């Protein structure tokens, strides 16, 4: 047993707030090998590691940390990849403080191990230092699997199935695979080359990725299975339908959904207009409505655009209730984002068709509601206006109906989420069709989508190998 408890948690260096608010480069610069080894030495190698309980895919945390401590970084990467094929991504975006790190025993008296940052270090080290992937040669099974949607759920399922020897084709609606990892989460939090590297790896495994394929429109599930000869299908199409507030003025120019704003900037490179053709209007004061990761990503992206002078986040509860990750809230505050808590808009007002003012109420917190957070209630006569020339609505998202519309025998709940017939293998009501990720659970996390992709891959493998499919 090591007795590293007295060493404080190692903080990786970060770009300074006043510098990073003007660029799109990653905020956290990551550990050096020495820092990683120092941090790893704090792990007391629990016999019954509590940290693993918090990890949805049960990464072998003590084993990989021990390998880091010994400087065996590539071996550590292999160890993580036994249960998590995208560590460079999860190490950056998992809400670790609510998952693995929340349960770490070192955290009871001091600060928990920086499991996520170690995971990221190991993944980055492997990406930069490994010459060629050791591709496992598996016997082809002759089974063909279609994966719909190239988000974390689909990518994980595809990787696992390819390793089992199946022929895998991913159909992605956009011109770029990655799902939210690409069009939603900005590069200063998740650099696109990290995502690209994972996608390249899948291609090396033999996975074919067909972009520009909107399933439901160009092909139905039945056509995939009956005409294209796929033995099974996995649906990982996410929860991409943006919610609006349903208040007056939402059609004014300058009102965006977070998805539109982030897609323009991240996927279509509007921040590089006019080198790229997609524009984003040069706004000065941008308000963001919401308090989750999406709201903060939109706010911090808005701040980085060259003409932005001020970004205000309007959130109807208080800081404690914000669902966004602590780290992101802190980063946003350091960068100078103005948080207006207990504030709820009720009307967008405009001039000449463009947004100019947001009319809001002040709120107070009442009794806890179903989500166990205190319910915000409107304070009478508290109306006031916030001046802004753009507002980004980040209220979460619903389910896209395209697939379900094209397959009547696929059961969905009242909100359109695909229902599972067996949650252990993520199979749906339609034979041969599996599903996982946000399309099943509603907007959740990257790691839970990956976990679902993994379970479904196992289910699909058993399904195609047993019958005459």
């Amino acid at each position, binding site marked *: 047993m090591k007795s590293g408890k007295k060493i404080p948690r190692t903080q990786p260096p970060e770009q300074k707030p006043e510098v990073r608010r003007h660029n799109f480069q990653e905020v956290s610069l990551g550990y050096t090998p020495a820092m990683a080894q120092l941090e790893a030495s704090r792990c007391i190698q629990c016999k019954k590691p509590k940290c693993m309980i918090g990890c949805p895919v049960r990464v072998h945390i003590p084993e990989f940390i021990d390998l880091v401590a010994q400087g065996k970084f590539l071996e550590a990467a292999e160890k993580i990849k036994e249960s998590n094929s995208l560590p460079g991504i999860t190490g950056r975006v998992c809400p670790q403080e609510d998952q693995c790190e929340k349960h770490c025993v070192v955290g009871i008296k001091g600060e928990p191990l920086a499991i996520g940052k170690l995971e990221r270090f190991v993944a980055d080290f492997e990406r930069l230092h490994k010459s060629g992937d050791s591709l496992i040669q598996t016997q082809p099974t002759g089974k063909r699997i279609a994966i719909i949607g190239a988000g974390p759920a689909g990518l994980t399922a595809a990787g696992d199935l390819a390793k089992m020897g199946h022929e895998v084709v991913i159909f992605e*609606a*956009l*011109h770029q695979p990655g799902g939210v990892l690409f*069009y939603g989460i900005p590069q200063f939090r998740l650099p696109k080359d990290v995502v690209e590297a994972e996608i390249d790896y899948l291609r090396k495994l033999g996975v074919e990725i067909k*972009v*520009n*394929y*909107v399933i439901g*429109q*160009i*092909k139905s599930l039945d056509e995939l299975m009956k005409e294209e000869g796929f033995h099974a299908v996995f649906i990982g199409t996410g929860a*991409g*339908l*943006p919610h*609006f507030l*349903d208040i007056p003025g*939402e*059609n*004014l*120019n*300058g009102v*965006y*959904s977070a*998805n*539109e704003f982030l*897609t*323009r900037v991240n996927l*279509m*490179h509007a921040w590089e*207009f*006019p*080198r*790229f*053709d*997609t*524009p984003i*209007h040069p706004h000065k004061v941008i308000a963001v409505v919401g308090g989750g990761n999406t709201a903060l990503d939109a706010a911090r992206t808005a701040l980085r655009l060259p003409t932005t002078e001020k970004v205000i986040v309007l959130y109807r509860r208080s800081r404690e209730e914000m669902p966004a990750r602590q780290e992101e809230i802190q980063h946003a505050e350091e960068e100078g984002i103005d948080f207006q808590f207990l504030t709820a808009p009720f009307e967008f007002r405009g001039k000449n*068709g463009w947004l100019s003012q947001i009319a809001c109420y002040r709120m107070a917190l009442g009794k806890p509601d179903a989500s166990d957070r205190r319910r915000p209630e409107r304070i009478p006569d508290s109306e006031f206006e916030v001046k802004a020339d753009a507002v980004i609505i980040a209220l979460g998202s619903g389910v*896209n*109906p*395209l697939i379900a519309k094209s397959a009547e025998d696929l059961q969905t709940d009242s909100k359109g989420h695909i229902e599972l017939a067996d949650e252990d293998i993520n199979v749906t009501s339609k034979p041969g069709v599996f599903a996982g990720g946000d399309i099943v659970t509603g907007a959740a996390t990257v790691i839970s989508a990956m976990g679902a992709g993994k379970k479904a891959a196992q289910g699909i493998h058993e399904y195609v190998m047993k019958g005459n499919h």
Partner: protein
Amino acid sequence: MYTILEKENLAPRVFRYIIQAPDIAKKARPGQFVIIRLDETGERFPITISDMDSNSGTLTVYVQAIGKSSLEMSELHDGDSILDVVGPLGNASEIAKFGTVVLVGGGFGIAAIHPIARALTEAGNHTLSILGARTAELVLLEDAMRKVSSEVCIVTNDGSSGSEGLVTDVLLQKIKEGIPIDRVIAIGPLVMMKSVADLTRSYNIKTTVSLNPIMIDGTGMCGACRVTVGNQMKFACVDGPEFDGHEVDFESLFNRLNSYVSEEYEARQRYIQDTQDKEPCRLEASSQTVSSS
């Protein structure tokens, strides 16, 4: 990559393309559209599918060269390729036996009306197509429309072909003649669709219009294409693009379509500047050679 098999310059700034896209051609139906991205730095822009041939695996589209992307597309030639073509997107037009249907096509909206007219005629309707344009040379697809419609009326603003005036003048005249009109389908510039809808509202004739808001993904993910129909928010790419013309809030759509005017202008000017530096007036030159042949 999607290859352009054939490109033709039909009128000043109006081009027809036949594009190889077998999977889309197999599935596409009248009323649907594709989203095109020309190259790595390009934007995604929607274009109506005007014809599809599942045997040859091709799509026909008509593009008016007005801004950066459409001008850039007008520089492509036979054998060149387009990086991304996504589709078919949107819902197909409702094809049924309505009785007498009036199809109003304005400008390059005629290209969108064409497959709908054909399908409605095949479904046993009496189809009257009213084709409008500013001037004679902008009346697209006249012969093709005659082949697929029971009757065709041409109307131009300057009277250079057919009658002089607006499509609504002809429509009003037909209504006044007393022919029973069971449905009107209008596709063209927004002002035209609005005036058609305003006219038919007073005569209680169900009218379908096809909306063209700014789009990005075309799959219901971004909400940029939102329009107000019957006081409800709809996404034109997945709920449309066709809607009941009497329910559409045209005013807010006019406003939203103008949201990127200055950026579009900037991009267009820069593009014209760049291409002229390389080779003077390529677009004008090519349009002259082809249209005079």
